[in-house]
Protein backbone atom coordinates (compact mmCIF):
# COMPACT_ATOMS: atom_id res chain seq x y z
CA UNK A 1 0.00 0.00 0.00
CA UNK A 2 1.39 3.41 -0.90
CA UNK A 3 1.48 5.70 2.13
CA UNK A 4 -0.79 8.72 2.11
CA UNK A 5 0.89 12.08 1.66
CA UNK A 6 0.82 15.27 3.71
CA UNK A 7 2.50 18.61 3.04
CA UNK A 8 3.33 20.72 6.08
CA UNK A 9 3.55 24.43 5.30
CA UNK A 10 4.98 26.56 8.11
CA UNK A 11 7.79 29.08 8.36
CA UNK A 12 8.85 27.69 11.74
CA UNK A 13 11.23 24.78 11.44
CA UNK A 14 10.32 23.68 14.95
CA UNK A 15 6.58 23.57 14.23
CA UNK A 16 7.28 21.63 11.03
CA UNK A 17 9.35 19.15 13.01
CA UNK A 18 6.70 18.70 15.73
CA UNK A 19 3.87 18.37 13.20
CA UNK A 20 5.91 15.97 11.05
CA UNK A 21 6.44 13.60 13.94
CA UNK A 22 2.69 13.51 14.70
CA UNK A 23 1.58 13.17 11.08
CA UNK A 24 4.14 10.47 10.32
CA UNK A 25 2.76 8.65 13.35
CA UNK A 26 -0.61 8.61 11.56
CA UNK A 27 1.04 6.74 8.69
CA UNK A 28 1.61 9.64 6.30
CA UNK A 29 4.59 10.38 4.12
CA UNK A 30 5.45 14.01 4.89
CA UNK A 31 6.95 16.84 2.84
CA UNK A 32 7.66 20.35 4.07
CA UNK A 33 7.46 23.88 2.68
CA UNK A 34 8.51 27.07 4.46
CA UNK A 35 5.96 29.41 2.84
CA UNK A 36 2.98 29.49 0.48
CA UNK A 37 5.08 30.04 -2.59
CA UNK A 38 7.25 26.99 -1.95
CA UNK A 39 4.11 24.99 -1.25
CA UNK A 40 2.53 26.11 -4.50
CA UNK A 41 5.59 25.00 -6.49
CA UNK A 42 5.38 21.63 -4.73
CA UNK A 43 1.66 21.28 -5.51
CA UNK A 44 2.19 22.15 -9.18
CA UNK A 45 4.22 18.93 -9.33
CA UNK A 46 2.26 16.57 -7.10
CA UNK A 47 -0.85 17.28 -5.06
CA UNK A 48 -0.72 15.81 -1.55
CA UNK A 49 -3.81 14.31 0.13
CA UNK A 50 -3.60 16.54 3.22
CA UNK A 51 -2.07 20.00 3.70
CA UNK A 52 -1.34 21.45 7.12
CA UNK A 53 -1.14 25.19 6.52
CA UNK A 54 0.12 28.10 8.61
CA UNK A 55 -1.55 31.46 7.99
CA UNK A 56 1.07 34.15 8.52
CA UNK A 57 4.27 33.40 6.57
CA UNK A 58 6.81 35.44 4.59
CA UNK A 59 6.71 35.57 0.75
CA UNK A 60 3.19 34.10 0.43
CA UNK A 61 0.72 33.68 3.29
CA UNK A 62 -1.54 30.68 3.83
CA UNK A 63 -4.74 32.34 2.66
CA UNK A 64 -3.21 33.36 -0.69
CA UNK A 65 -1.79 29.86 -1.10
CA UNK A 66 -5.17 28.27 -0.36
CA UNK A 67 -7.00 30.39 -2.97
CA UNK A 68 -4.38 29.60 -5.62
CA UNK A 69 -4.29 25.91 -4.70
CA UNK A 70 -8.05 25.57 -5.08
CA UNK A 71 -7.76 27.10 -8.60
CA UNK A 72 -5.14 24.52 -9.68
CA UNK A 73 -6.20 21.42 -11.64
CA UNK A 74 -6.90 18.83 -8.92
CA UNK A 75 -6.57 21.56 -6.29
CA UNK A 76 -9.96 20.86 -4.73
CA UNK A 77 -8.94 17.34 -3.75
CA UNK A 78 -6.60 17.81 -0.79
CA UNK A 79 -7.94 18.24 2.72
CA UNK A 80 -6.54 21.55 3.93
CA UNK A 81 -6.21 22.16 7.66
CA UNK A 82 -5.17 25.62 8.72
CA UNK A 83 -2.83 25.45 11.68
CA UNK A 84 -2.13 28.87 13.16
CA UNK A 85 -1.88 31.07 16.26
CA UNK A 86 -4.82 33.11 14.97
CA UNK A 87 -7.77 32.13 17.21
CA UNK A 88 -10.44 34.76 16.59
CA UNK A 89 -13.78 33.26 15.53
CA UNK A 90 -14.14 35.69 12.58
CA UNK A 91 -10.78 34.69 11.17
CA UNK A 92 -11.57 30.98 11.58
CA UNK A 93 -14.86 31.52 9.73
CA UNK A 94 -12.97 33.40 7.01
CA UNK A 95 -10.57 30.49 6.55
CA UNK A 96 -13.39 27.95 6.29
CA UNK A 97 -15.20 30.17 3.80
CA UNK A 98 -12.04 30.34 1.68
CA UNK A 99 -12.13 26.55 1.37
CA UNK A 100 -10.21 25.16 4.36
CA UNK A 101 -11.60 21.80 5.53
CA UNK A 102 -10.71 22.38 9.15
CA UNK A 103 -8.77 24.67 11.43
CA UNK A 104 -6.27 23.94 14.20
CA UNK A 105 -5.50 26.64 16.75
CA UNK A 106 -1.93 26.63 18.06
CA UNK A 107 -0.84 25.32 20.46
CA UNK A 108 -1.89 21.82 19.47
CA UNK A 109 -0.81 18.30 20.37
CA UNK A 110 -0.94 14.84 18.84
CA UNK A 111 -4.41 14.13 20.20
CA UNK A 112 -5.87 17.28 18.70
CA UNK A 113 -4.24 16.75 15.33
CA UNK A 114 -5.29 13.09 15.26
CA UNK A 115 -8.90 13.97 16.04
CA UNK A 116 -8.88 16.69 13.35
CA UNK A 117 -7.54 14.27 10.74
CA UNK A 118 -10.29 11.83 11.75
CA UNK A 119 -13.02 14.47 11.54
CA UNK A 120 -12.09 15.49 7.98
CA UNK A 121 -11.86 11.83 6.99
CA UNK A 122 -8.10 11.84 6.37
CA UNK A 123 -7.51 8.78 8.59
Amino acid at each position, binding site marked *: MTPRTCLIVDDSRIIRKVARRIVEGLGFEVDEAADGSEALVFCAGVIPEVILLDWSMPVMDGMTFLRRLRALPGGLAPKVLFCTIE*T*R*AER*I*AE*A*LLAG*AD*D*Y*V*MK*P*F*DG*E*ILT*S*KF*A*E*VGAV
Partner: protein
Amino acid sequence: MTPDDFDRLQTLMASRAGFRLTRDRMKLAEHRLGPVARREGFETVDAMLASLWAKPVASLGWAVIEALLNPETWFRRDRDSFDTLARELLPALGKARGDRPVRIWSAGCSTGQEAWSLAIAAQEAHVAVEIVATDLSQRALEKGRSGAYTGFEIQRGLKAETMLRWFDQAEDAWIAKAELRAVVHFARANLADAPTDDHRFDVIFCRHLLGDADPARRRDMFDNLERRLVDDGCLFLGPDETPDGDSIAFRAVAGRKGLFVKSAAALRRAA
Protein backbone atom coordinates in the same frame (compact mmCIF):
# COMPACT_ATOMS: atom_id res chain seq x y z
CA MET B 1 3.00 8.49 50.37
CA THR B 2 3.60 5.18 52.11
CA PRO B 3 2.38 1.79 50.82
CA ASP B 4 0.00 1.81 53.78
CA ASP B 5 -1.44 5.18 52.65
CA PHE B 6 -1.95 3.75 49.18
CA ASP B 7 -3.71 0.64 50.57
CA ARG B 8 -6.09 2.91 52.44
CA LEU B 9 -6.69 5.01 49.33
CA GLN B 10 -7.52 1.84 47.41
CA THR B 11 -10.05 0.87 50.06
CA LEU B 12 -11.53 4.37 50.11
CA MET B 13 -11.92 4.44 46.32
CA ALA B 14 -13.44 0.95 46.19
CA SER B 15 -15.90 1.42 49.05
CA ARG B 16 -17.14 4.93 48.26
CA ALA B 17 -16.81 5.18 44.49
CA GLY B 18 -16.65 1.55 43.37
CA PHE B 19 -13.39 2.55 41.68
CA ARG B 20 -10.42 0.23 41.34
CA LEU B 21 -7.28 2.22 42.04
CA THR B 22 -4.60 -0.02 40.57
CA ARG B 23 -1.14 -0.13 42.12
CA ASP B 24 0.48 1.29 38.96
CA ARG B 25 -1.33 4.56 39.70
CA MET B 26 0.56 5.25 42.93
CA LYS B 27 2.80 7.93 41.37
CA LEU B 28 -0.16 9.43 39.55
CA ALA B 29 -2.18 9.49 42.78
CA GLU B 30 0.59 11.36 44.58
CA HIS B 31 0.80 13.85 41.72
CA ARG B 32 -2.97 14.44 41.64
CA LEU B 33 -3.24 14.84 45.41
CA GLY B 34 -0.63 17.62 45.54
CA PRO B 35 -3.06 20.37 44.44
CA VAL B 36 -5.77 18.96 46.76
CA ALA B 37 -3.42 19.19 49.74
CA ARG B 38 -2.52 22.80 48.89
CA ARG B 39 -6.18 23.75 48.38
CA GLU B 40 -7.17 22.16 51.68
CA GLY B 41 -4.39 23.94 53.56
CA PHE B 42 -1.96 21.07 54.20
CA GLU B 43 1.84 21.31 53.91
CA THR B 44 2.16 17.96 52.13
CA VAL B 45 0.11 15.10 50.72
CA ASP B 46 1.36 12.93 53.60
CA ALA B 47 0.08 15.44 56.14
CA MET B 48 -3.32 15.55 54.44
CA LEU B 49 -3.63 11.78 54.37
CA ALA B 50 -2.52 11.45 58.00
CA SER B 51 -5.26 13.91 58.96
CA LEU B 52 -7.83 12.08 56.84
CA TRP B 53 -7.05 8.70 58.41
CA ALA B 54 -7.09 10.18 61.92
CA LYS B 55 -10.32 12.12 61.47
CA PRO B 56 -12.28 11.12 58.36
CA VAL B 57 -13.95 14.39 57.35
CA ALA B 58 -16.43 13.68 54.55
CA SER B 59 -15.61 16.79 52.49
CA LEU B 60 -11.87 16.04 52.54
CA GLY B 61 -12.55 12.39 51.72
CA TRP B 62 -14.58 13.35 48.67
CA ALA B 63 -11.99 15.91 47.54
CA VAL B 64 -9.43 13.09 47.59
CA ILE B 65 -11.76 10.67 45.79
CA GLU B 66 -12.60 13.21 43.08
CA ALA B 67 -8.94 13.83 42.36
CA LEU B 68 -8.27 10.11 41.87
CA LEU B 69 -11.09 9.41 39.42
CA ASN B 70 -10.20 9.23 35.74
CA PRO B 71 -11.30 12.55 34.18
CA GLU B 72 -10.09 11.79 30.63
CA THR B 73 -12.68 12.81 28.04
CA TRP B 74 -13.00 14.74 24.82
CA PHE B 75 -15.59 15.86 22.30
CA ARG B 76 -17.05 13.10 20.12
CA ARG B 77 -14.74 10.52 21.68
CA ASP B 78 -15.26 7.29 19.66
CA ARG B 79 -16.88 9.20 16.81
CA ASP B 80 -18.66 6.13 15.41
CA SER B 81 -20.91 5.96 18.47
CA PHE B 82 -22.07 9.54 17.95
CA ASP B 83 -22.65 8.90 14.25
CA THR B 84 -24.71 5.77 15.02
CA LEU B 85 -26.74 7.77 17.51
CA ALA B 86 -27.32 10.74 15.20
CA ARG B 87 -27.97 8.87 11.96
CA GLU B 88 -29.77 5.73 13.11
CA LEU B 89 -31.05 5.84 16.68
CA LEU B 90 -32.21 9.42 17.20
CA PRO B 91 -34.42 9.66 14.09
CA ALA B 92 -36.12 6.37 15.01
CA LEU B 93 -36.44 7.21 18.71
CA GLY B 94 -37.69 10.73 17.97
CA LYS B 95 -40.49 9.25 15.86
CA ALA B 96 -41.29 6.54 18.40
CA ARG B 97 -41.46 8.95 21.33
CA GLY B 98 -43.78 11.35 19.52
CA ASP B 99 -44.29 14.54 21.52
CA ARG B 100 -41.98 13.78 24.39
CA PRO B 101 -38.25 14.44 24.06
CA VAL B 102 -35.82 11.52 23.84
CA ARG B 103 -34.15 11.11 27.22
CA ILE B 104 -30.39 10.59 27.23
CA TRP B 105 -28.10 9.98 30.19
CA SER B 106 -24.42 10.80 30.05
CA ALA B 107 -23.33 8.61 32.97
CA GLY B 108 -19.88 9.52 34.28
CA CYS B 109 -19.75 12.70 32.21
CA SER B 110 -16.55 14.08 33.78
CA THR B 111 -16.06 17.64 32.46
CA GLY B 112 -19.06 17.48 30.13
CA GLN B 113 -17.65 17.07 26.63
CA GLU B 114 -19.74 13.93 26.08
CA ALA B 115 -22.97 15.65 27.12
CA TRP B 116 -22.39 18.64 24.84
CA SER B 117 -21.45 16.28 21.98
CA LEU B 118 -24.77 14.46 22.51
CA ALA B 119 -26.64 17.79 22.50
CA ILE B 120 -24.94 18.83 19.25
CA ALA B 121 -25.75 15.47 17.63
CA ALA B 122 -29.42 15.80 18.62
CA GLN B 123 -29.75 19.41 17.50
CA GLU B 124 -28.15 18.62 14.16
CA ALA B 125 -30.51 15.64 13.73
CA HIS B 126 -33.46 17.93 14.66
CA VAL B 127 -34.61 15.58 17.41
CA ALA B 128 -35.88 16.96 20.72
CA VAL B 129 -33.86 15.61 23.65
CA GLU B 130 -33.40 15.98 27.38
CA ILE B 131 -29.88 15.16 28.48
CA VAL B 132 -28.95 14.42 32.07
CA ALA B 133 -25.20 14.41 32.69
CA THR B 134 -23.97 12.96 35.96
CA ASP B 135 -20.64 12.43 37.62
CA LEU B 136 -19.23 11.74 41.04
CA SER B 137 -16.86 14.71 40.91
CA GLN B 138 -18.31 18.10 41.86
CA ARG B 139 -15.33 19.88 40.33
CA ALA B 140 -15.78 18.10 37.02
CA LEU B 141 -19.50 18.90 37.10
CA GLU B 142 -18.82 22.59 37.74
CA LYS B 143 -16.61 22.68 34.69
CA GLY B 144 -19.18 20.80 32.61
CA ARG B 145 -21.99 23.06 33.75
CA SER B 146 -19.95 26.16 32.89
CA GLY B 147 -19.83 24.87 29.31
CA ALA B 148 -16.53 26.76 28.95
CA TYR B 149 -13.51 25.12 27.34
CA THR B 150 -10.01 26.26 26.43
CA GLY B 151 -8.82 26.31 22.83
CA PHE B 152 -6.91 23.17 23.63
CA GLU B 153 -9.99 21.35 24.96
CA ILE B 154 -12.54 22.59 22.43
CA GLN B 155 -10.69 21.45 19.36
CA ARG B 156 -9.98 17.96 20.63
CA GLY B 157 -12.68 16.13 18.69
CA LEU B 158 -14.63 19.07 17.25
CA LYS B 159 -14.30 20.39 13.73
CA ALA B 160 -13.82 24.16 13.56
CA GLU B 161 -17.14 24.45 11.77
CA THR B 162 -18.97 22.65 14.60
CA MET B 163 -17.11 24.71 17.19
CA LEU B 164 -18.16 27.99 15.56
CA ARG B 165 -21.75 26.82 15.18
CA TRP B 166 -22.30 25.69 18.79
CA PHE B 167 -19.88 27.72 20.92
CA ASP B 168 -19.37 31.45 21.51
CA GLN B 169 -15.87 32.81 21.89
CA ALA B 170 -15.23 34.84 25.06
CA GLU B 171 -11.69 35.92 25.91
CA ASP B 172 -9.73 32.67 26.05
CA ALA B 173 -12.73 30.36 26.34
CA TRP B 174 -15.30 28.79 24.07
CA ILE B 175 -18.72 28.62 25.72
CA ALA B 176 -21.66 26.37 24.83
CA LYS B 177 -24.51 28.33 23.29
CA ALA B 178 -27.93 28.72 24.95
CA GLU B 179 -29.49 26.24 22.48
CA LEU B 180 -27.25 23.52 23.90
CA ARG B 181 -27.60 24.66 27.50
CA ALA B 182 -31.37 24.40 27.23
CA VAL B 183 -31.21 20.62 26.81
CA VAL B 184 -28.40 19.57 29.17
CA HIS B 185 -28.79 19.27 32.94
CA PHE B 186 -25.82 18.40 35.19
CA ALA B 187 -26.23 16.59 38.51
CA ARG B 188 -24.12 14.56 40.92
CA ALA B 189 -24.72 10.83 41.01
CA ASN B 190 -22.82 7.75 42.13
CA LEU B 191 -23.16 4.81 39.76
CA ALA B 192 -22.42 2.48 42.64
CA ASP B 193 -25.70 3.52 44.31
CA ALA B 194 -28.97 1.88 43.29
CA PRO B 195 -31.58 4.23 41.77
CA THR B 196 -33.99 5.66 44.34
CA ASP B 197 -36.58 6.85 41.83
CA ASP B 198 -37.99 5.38 38.63
CA HIS B 199 -36.69 7.93 36.12
CA ARG B 200 -35.66 6.02 33.00
CA PHE B 201 -33.74 6.88 29.86
CA ASP B 202 -34.05 5.96 26.18
CA VAL B 203 -30.28 6.07 25.65
CA ILE B 204 -27.41 5.75 28.13
CA PHE B 205 -23.81 6.68 27.35
CA CYS B 206 -21.49 5.16 29.98
CA ARG B 207 -18.11 4.86 28.33
CA HIS B 208 -14.62 4.18 29.64
CA LEU B 209 -15.92 4.03 33.19
CA LEU B 210 -16.79 0.43 34.02
CA GLY B 211 -13.30 -0.68 32.99
CA ASP B 212 -12.03 1.25 36.01
CA ALA B 213 -14.70 -0.12 38.31
CA ASP B 214 -13.95 -2.41 41.24
CA PRO B 215 -14.68 -5.90 39.82
CA ALA B 216 -16.82 -6.74 42.85
CA ARG B 217 -19.10 -3.76 42.11
CA ARG B 218 -19.31 -4.02 38.33
CA ARG B 219 -22.32 -6.29 38.29
CA ASP B 220 -24.31 -3.94 40.54
CA MET B 221 -23.34 -1.02 38.33
CA PHE B 222 -24.59 -2.82 35.21
CA ASP B 223 -27.80 -3.67 37.10
CA ASN B 224 -28.22 -0.02 38.03
CA LEU B 225 -27.77 1.00 34.39
CA GLU B 226 -30.29 -1.64 33.33
CA ARG B 227 -32.88 -0.33 35.80
CA ARG B 228 -32.41 3.19 34.42
CA LEU B 229 -32.92 2.11 30.79
CA VAL B 230 -36.33 1.70 29.13
CA ASP B 231 -36.94 -1.78 27.72
CA ASP B 232 -36.38 -0.72 24.11
CA GLY B 233 -33.48 1.59 24.99
CA CYS B 234 -29.79 1.50 24.07
CA LEU B 235 -26.61 1.48 26.11
CA PHE B 236 -23.30 2.73 24.73
CA LEU B 237 -20.07 1.54 26.32
CA GLY B 238 -16.57 2.28 25.03
CA PRO B 239 -15.92 0.46 21.74
CA ASP B 240 -13.74 -2.14 23.45
CA GLU B 241 -15.85 -2.55 26.59
CA THR B 242 -18.34 -5.33 27.23
CA PRO B 243 -20.56 -6.47 30.11
CA ASP B 244 -19.56 -10.09 29.39
CA GLY B 245 -18.59 -11.87 32.58
CA ASP B 246 -20.14 -9.15 34.76
CA SER B 247 -23.75 -9.03 33.68
CA ILE B 248 -26.29 -10.87 31.53
CA ALA B 249 -28.61 -7.85 31.43
CA PHE B 250 -27.37 -6.67 28.04
CA ARG B 251 -26.54 -8.12 24.66
CA ALA B 252 -24.27 -6.62 21.99
CA VAL B 253 -25.72 -5.23 18.77
CA ALA B 254 -23.88 -6.87 15.85
CA GLY B 255 -21.82 -4.52 13.71
CA ARG B 256 -22.04 -1.60 16.14
CA LYS B 257 -19.05 -1.58 18.47
CA GLY B 258 -19.94 -0.55 22.01
CA LEU B 259 -23.73 -0.63 21.44
CA PHE B 260 -25.90 -2.84 23.66
CA VAL B 261 -29.61 -3.48 24.19
CA LYS B 262 -31.38 -5.32 27.00
CA SER B 263 -31.11 -9.08 26.86
CA ALA B 264 -34.10 -11.42 26.94
CA ALA B 265 -33.11 -12.24 30.52
CA ALA B 266 -33.43 -8.61 31.59
CA LEU B 267 -36.77 -8.21 29.83
CA ARG B 268 -38.16 -11.40 31.44
CA ARG B 269 -37.12 -10.15 34.85
CA ALA B 270 -38.97 -6.88 34.25
CA ALA B 271 -42.14 -8.75 33.17
